[in-house]
């Protein structure tokens, strides 16, 4: 089971992984490469990762969310490499009996992934390229 891929993400496949007959709600979150960031044009994004650690950290996020929202089924896949505008960088599928849990689990996963998983992105635009978050924060 890997949470990382170098290929385009098939969100429908993640949906199929999580849905059970007892689930009344499915929330699919997709992070997508958009054409702007903090007022600057973006043309593509390169995603780098510390792969084995990223796998472990995503696993930890999933386990922590499963503890917080018992009964929710979760699938996560993050893409790495060079992505263009409109490409999906991450898909999170959450299934639950009731919608409140599916929404809350989905939101918790993406928030925690963005905090702890060692994945980085380099944005490329007309003004050059830059590792997001590096300037002035380290």
């Amino acid at each position: 089971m890997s949470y990382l891929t170098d290929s385009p993400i098939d969100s429908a496949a993640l949906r199929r992984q999580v849905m059970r007959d007892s689930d009344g709600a499915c929330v699919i979150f997709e992070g997508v490469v958009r054409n702007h960031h903090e007022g600057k044009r973006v043309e593509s994004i390169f995603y780098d990762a510390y792969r084995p650690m990223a796998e472990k950290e995503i696993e930890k996020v999933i386990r922590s969310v499963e503890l917080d929202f018992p009964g929710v089924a979760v699938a996560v896949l993050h893409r790495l490499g060079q992505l263009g505008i409109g490409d999906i960088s991450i898909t999170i599928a959450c299934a639950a009996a009731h919608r409140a849990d599916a929404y809350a689990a989905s939101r918790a996963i993406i928030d925690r992934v963005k905090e702890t998983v060692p994945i980085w992105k380099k944005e490329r635009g007309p003004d050059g390229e830059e590792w997001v978050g590096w300037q002035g924060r380290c």
Partner: protein
Amino acid sequence: MKVRLLYFAILKDITGRSEAELTLPEGTLAGDVWTSMRNQYAQLAGYAQPPMIAVNEAYARPETRLRDGDELAFIPPVAGG
């Protein structure tokens, strides 16, 4: 002792490499390695505090004492998702 140091993202760009094998005196702390990196690379001089640190694929504190065979990585601000 020998420690494997991995470079990712901005640190890979700055150092021009993806990893290095370091030979370190016993008792070296993870944060000490950051200090020596800062001395070596001008672009890091302003960053007195190390980024997040990982030892053997798990987050660790700068005070973590390294051991022979450890895998060390500095984790710049993450930006996944």
